[in-house]
Structure formats: structure tokens, C-alpha cells
């Protein structure tokens, strides 16, 4: 099942086996959530480079695992099929009553599957463990092979001819839940078509993409775990994403989207953040929620430029409902500032009914024209 390459203490194999079992089962294949039915995103033909970034906190019965890993993908899309490879590296900590310590991970393998659902398979998964199990130190390296671990499907969420973003979080969450864990996971996946890069140095470009994903994931994880959001940092990250987009050619020849559609490498991450805020609205003021709505429109997660119109409509609907509720409260409380903020937010959401209601409320409460 696995190959032990080094161990100082093997007396606690039962605990270690359980731990490894959890690690192995956490990478069995899982069905990803389906992509939008109305606009199925897919990789257009050509060579693609991708990045993913995942932050995870997973609570198990006897310990909590806190990990971060990121990875690279390099593949070709042709005739509806994908072929290439991937790799990841990461680290994690284990904290529990009987298990404590840290680990580093290195993995790689092939990538295949249909052009709308890349499937990554594990060829090699090295785990370097330095843990204490029931008071006994264990330092070991475990190498998993193709037979020990499965793979993962990534569901594309939005794509233009030159860029794609996907959902890597859902299948990872499903896997940890299947392994008995209670995961809090945020993750991002993005890829760009090399042929559309105007910058000559693709590795440098992808390094910047990877750094941006990592930072955006960290911001999102901080928001989801501690609440609140640093909007200066959010703006800086979105600005960086827009800067990266400048180095890509707009290309609508593949038939995906149109000249109006756009995404950035963090579009899905911002969508996740917006959905988190809307699921936990009590954590955000109306002004803050409005700024998140503006960020969503800015990156093509919402609005008429969104490459995934279904996802955009869903997000718009959630924002409209939340601001409609807040408008009712603001009117009841005769709160001019709140009504004004809702009117500003409504402009970004683009809900004409809400805009009209908010403007009427402004007139009534603030004394506008």
C-alpha cells in the first residue's frame, strides 16, 4: 500500500496507518459539481499552463490538519481531449490530543480528460512526516504510487478562449468529508493559453499568476475564518489580476464567450468570496458588501461581461435579495446613509427594480430631488 523509506519509531503504526489512510482516501476521485449548463466552459485548442492554490483546515476526530499546497499544470487541448501533467507541493501541521507535528508534500502525475473537465491522476505522492503520535516521535517519508491514490476532477466554471477558471474546492471538500473530516477549504484554479500570451516569458508570467492565487486564497481564507476583509489588499490583488490580463490577447475565435466577455485569473475566487459574504451577511456592513459587489463586476464574476452568465445571474440575484432586505430595514430606520449605500450597490448589481426603489427611498429619507 505504501513504501516506508525511513522511520525512527515504528511502534505506533496503527495510528500512522489511520493517518495515511486519511491522506490516501482524501485523494480518491470525486465527481465535481457540474458546470453551468447554459454556457459550458471548456479549454480551447492549444497549449495551456495552469495554477492551483488550496488552503485547508480539516478537523478529524483526534486531530486537526491545517495545510496549504499549490501546484502547476501543463497540458494541451486538442479535439476535445486534454493531455499533460501536473505537480504540487505543500505543507501542513497536525494538532490534536495524541497527534502533533508537521508534514511536507510533493506530488505529480498525468492530466487527461475531456476539455471541460480536467482530470489529474496521482503518479507519485511523497509525504514527509515529522510528527508525535501518543508521545512517540515519528519521522518518516512515505511514497504513494498510482495504485495508492486516485485523482481529482476540476470543474471549469468560466472560460474565454485564452483563460479559464475552475472549481477545485468542491471535489477536495467532498473527499475530506468522505474521509470523515470536517473541512474548511478554499481553493482556486486558473489556466491561460500560452499562444495568447503577449509577454514572452511564460514561466515568469505563471509565477506571478501563482503568487496572485496564493495571496488571494490567503485573503479569502482569512475572511472566511476570521471575518472582515482588507479592501486595500483586495483592490491590490484585483489590480494585479487586471494587469496580468493586459498581457493576454483577447480572443473570441474559439466560440467561447464573445468580444464582450472577460474573466481574470481570480474571477472564481472573487465569486467564492462574494458568496461567502452573502451567506454570512452579518459579518459585512452594507458599504463593504457593496464594495464586494463592485469587485465581482470588475473581475467578470457578475454583470453583462461575465463569461458564465448563469453564475453571474445567480450572484446578482443573491446580492439583490440581500440589499432588498437591507433597504427595508434602512427605510424602517429612516437611515439616509444606509439607503445611499444601497443605491450605490444597486448600481453595481444592475437590478433596475432595486435601483428604482433605492432612489425613491433616498428621495423620501434623504430629501433628494
Amino acid at each position, binding site marked *: 500500500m505504501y513504501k516506508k523509506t525511513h522511520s525512527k519509531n515504528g511502534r505506533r503504526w496503527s495510528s500512522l496507518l489511520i493517518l495515511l489512510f486519511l491522506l490516501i482516501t482524501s485523494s480518491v476521485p470525486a465527481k465535481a459539481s457540474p458546470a453551468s449548463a447554459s454556457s459550458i466552459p471548456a479549454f480551447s485548442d492549444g497549449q495551456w499552463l495552469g495554477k492551483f492554490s488550496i488552503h485547508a483546515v480539516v478537523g478529524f476526530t483526534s486531530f486537526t490538519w491545517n495545510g496549504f499546497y499549490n501546484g502547476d499544470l501543463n497540458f494541451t487541448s486538442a479535439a476535445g481531449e486534454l493531455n499533460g501533467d501536473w505537480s504540487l507541493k505543500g505543507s501542513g501541521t497536525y494538532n490534536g490530543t495524541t497527534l502533533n507535528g508537521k508534514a511536507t508534500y510533493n506530488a505529480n502525475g498525468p492530466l487527461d480528460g475531456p476539455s471541460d473537465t480536467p482530470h489529474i491522476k496521482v503518479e507519485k505522492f511523497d509525504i514527509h512526516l515529522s510528527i508525535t503520535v501518543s508521545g512517540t516521535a515519528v519521522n518518516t517519508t512515505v511514497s504513494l504510487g498510482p495504485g495508492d491514490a486516485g485523482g481529482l476532477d476540476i470543474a471549469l466554471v468560466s472560460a474565454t478562449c485564452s483563460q479559464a477558471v475552475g472549481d477545485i474546492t468542491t471535489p477536495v471538500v467532498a473527499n475530506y468529508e468522505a474521509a470523515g473530516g470536517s473541512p474548511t477549504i478554499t481553493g482556486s484554479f486558473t489556466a491561460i493559453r500560452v499562444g495568447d500570451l503577449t509577454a514572452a516569458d511564460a514561466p515568469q508570467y505563471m509565477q506571478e499568476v501563482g503568487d496572485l492565487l496564493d495571496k488571494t486564497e490567503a485573503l479569502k481564507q482569512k475572511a472566511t475564518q476570521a471575518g472582515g476583509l482588507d479592501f486595500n489588499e483586495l483592490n491590490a490583488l484585483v489590480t494585479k489580476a*487586471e494587469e496580468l490580463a*493586459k498581457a*493576454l490577447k483577447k480572443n473570441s475565435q474559439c466560440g467561447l464567450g464573445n468580444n*464582450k466577455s472577460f474573466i481574470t485569473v481570480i474571477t472564481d475566487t472573487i465569486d467564492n468570496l462574494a458568496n461567502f459574504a452573502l451567506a454570512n451577511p452579518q459579518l459585512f456592513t452594507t458599504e463593504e458588501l457593496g464594495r464586494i459587489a463592485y469587485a465581482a463586476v470588475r473581475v467578470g464574476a457578475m*454583470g453583462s461581461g461575465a463569461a458564465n452568465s448563469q453564475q453571474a445571474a445567480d450572484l446578482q440575484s443573491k446580492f439583490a435579495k440581500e440589499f432588498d432586505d437591507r433597504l427595508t430595514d434602512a427605510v424602517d430606520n429612516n437611515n*439616509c446613509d444606509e439607503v445611499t*449605500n444601497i443605491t450605490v450597490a444597486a448600481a453595481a448589481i444592475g437590478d433596475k427594480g432595486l435601483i428604482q426603489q433605492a*432612489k425613491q427611498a433616498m428621495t423620501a429619507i434623504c430629501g433628494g430631488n
Partner: protein
Amino acid sequence: MQRIRIFVIGIILILSTLACNLSNGGSGPQPGGAATPASGNQPQSKSEPLLSAPGLGTVQLKTDTQGVGAKPLFQWEAVANAARYQLILNDSSGASYWAWDGTGTQIYLGGSESPPPADSAGPTLEAGSTWAVIAFDASGKVIASSEVRSISP
């Protein structure tokens, strides 16, 4: 005869002033807003403020209404005490298309401070779009709003 000429010239000046004022949305100078600079193309704006309330200042938009290209530079006058601005761009149907949030008083469509390549990825301006800018103070309070102005490539 000379008195009649002076009277007629006076009427013309008054009418011209009124016409200019109306073409700027009738808003006139507002607290915190500078005068609208000369523009190559007179705004064919809808002249409707995005927000309207007593005490709310005006954000004066500077960008021409047409002939601005597919990735225009949006510019506006700084507003006194403004800590940041939000910009919303609607497409020709009135739907929100692109937005921005920052401290500067100009930004290219797509979020760049330098001209983006015309064929680069990102949003592209379509004919019949409209845009507006809102100013916030450091506490996050809305302190000024622009009109909703037309813009076309």
C-alpha cells in the same frame, strides 16, 4: 439704437450662459467639485445624477462622450475630502458591465493606469454605454456623485 444693441447682446450672453449650464446637467458648481474642463466632444449625457440628495457634492466627469476607443481612460475631477472613488460602467442595455474601486481620479477600462493594448483581454467599451463615479470619505460615507454620462468608442 446703441442701447438696443447692448440689450440684445446682454440677452444673448444670458441665454448662452443658461444653455451652457443646462448642457452640464444643470448642476452648476458643487461643493468639493472643480469646474468641468474643456472637452473635445460635448457630453451627450442623460444628465441624470446617479445619486441625488441635499448636501451631496458633484463629481465632475472629464472623459469625452465619444471617440474614446475600445479601452478608454475614464477621468474625473478630484473631490475635496474624498478618500476613494467607485466607478460603474453600464452597457448599452443599462446592465452593469465593469466597475472599479480606488483612490485615483483616472483609470483605463480594464483597471490599468497605463494604456492597455487594444487587443488585450478584458472588458471592451461598446457604443451607447454609460458611466458614473461616486466619491467616499475616509469613513466610507458617500460625499459626492457624478451624473450618469454616455460614452461610446
